[in-house]
């Protein structure tokens, strides 16, 4: 569905992505893990066209840019709009839905992300982190995407909200047959949710496979070192 070929991205001569090639398949959930500065976020920003790669190409098979949703680490809700306005604005402007259709769809989406209709008229500054993240997911889903990219969706959330978001992502991915690519620091989150896990190091995909790559005796020394740090943090 998305094919990345020989992707290279530099920031002031520092290599952020080093000749990455990979194919993402429809309906799967991919998690990208790795240390800070390993190129995870740059990679999905290139897929989302928020960053332009210096070399290589990204082939979008059967989708256009409008079909790609992006969930930001800091939510990036429109602060001058209410929750409902945040969700209905793009469908009205871009998909040309009338207000009634957009509101009806938004109210269903709010239910799907376990939000009470009473928050419809609230502004983002009065919401908790978990609520903001759920609104941002509803806003992205309102555009009927085929692909959703999540940039550390749980980093600003407490453990209870992390489980909630995990279930929402999983359910949406299954019910809408979405390709989901999640950049995360939460190894357990990646273990539970992912069909495939990619381990990034110095702008390269060092290890790739299903969640079993995180169990047992790991062949890759760097992945072992990386995970051992997290086990220390977890305890």
């Amino acid at each position, binding site marked *: 569905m998305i094919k990345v070929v020989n992707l290279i991205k530099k920031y002031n001569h520092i290599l952020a992505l080093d000749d990455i090639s990979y194919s993402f398949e429809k309906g799967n959930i991919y998690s990208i893990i790795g240390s800070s500065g390993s190129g995870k976020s740059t990679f999905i920003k290139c897929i989302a066209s928020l960053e332009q790669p210096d070399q290589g190409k990204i082939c979008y098979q059967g989708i256009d840019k409008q079909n790609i949703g*992006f969930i930001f680490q800091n939510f*990036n809700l429109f602060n*001058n709009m209410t929750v409902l306005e945040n969700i209905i604005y*793009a469908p009205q*402007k871009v998909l040309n839905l009338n207000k009634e259709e957009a509101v009806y769809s938004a109210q269903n989406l709010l239910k799907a992300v376990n939000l009470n209709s009473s928050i419809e008229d609230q502004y983002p500054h009065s919401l908790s982190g978990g609520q903001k993240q759920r609104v941002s997911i509803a806003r992205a889903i309102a555009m009927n995407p085929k692909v959703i990219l999540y940039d550390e969706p749980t980093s600003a959330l407490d453990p209870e909200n992390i489980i909630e978001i995990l279930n929402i992502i999983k359910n949406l991915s299954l019910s809408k047959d979405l390709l989901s690519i999640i950049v995360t620091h939460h190894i357990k989150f990646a273990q539970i949710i992912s069909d495939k896990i990619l381990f990034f190091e110095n702008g390269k995909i060092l290890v790739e496979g299903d969640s079993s790559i995180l169990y047992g005796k790991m062949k890759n020394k760097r992945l072992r070192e990386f995970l051992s740090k997290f086990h220390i943090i977890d305890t």
Partner: protein
Amino acid sequence: MSLIEIVPYTQKIEYLLYIARYIAQGVMSTLLCSLSAIVFGIFISICLTILKYTNNTCFVFFVKVYISIIRGTPFFLQLFFVYFALPGLVNVHVSMIFACILTLSINSSAYVSEIIRGGIESVDKGQVDAAKMLSISYYDTMIDIVLPQSLKSIIPSLINEIINLVKESAVVGVIGIADIMRRAHIISVEKYDFVTPLCIAGLFYYILIFIIAQIGIIIEKKLK
């Protein structure tokens, strides 16, 4: 010693009213110059800001040079240039009021465009990225998302700029516009009294600026 101190009480009141009435006739000129300059200045500054955000190298360079020159030269010089030098260069007669409004507009546009730029940059860039990911056009992003939010941070600085403009407009008397300051000067010389006319002129400026500041407070409260 001012005349007000050596005449009887009733004459003092009459004298005060006479001076106040004379200077009050200049309020319209001050308001015309400064309010027109605010409107045109904001219009020019919006154009400058749009040009700056086109990412076209020529436009960006032009805006940078424009702002640098206007901020780097005195308003007095700019006014003299527009009124005395420009007609000779382009062979067009420029009226006093036109020269004043044009110079004040150009001068304030350089400052207001920087205020608008600051306001736009105060809005989290992440919201622009979010709009981009929702396929919202650049125009809609600016009009419906960025500008309404930047307005909150722009208003206090904009009110300050408007206040500065009203005070700066006191200079326009040097080319003959009969504004508050010019009239205060004329009557001071005529009556050999610099205290009373200047105090009354100061009071008029203070009232004008107080009203503008109050309007600013009301707008700020409404935007909160």
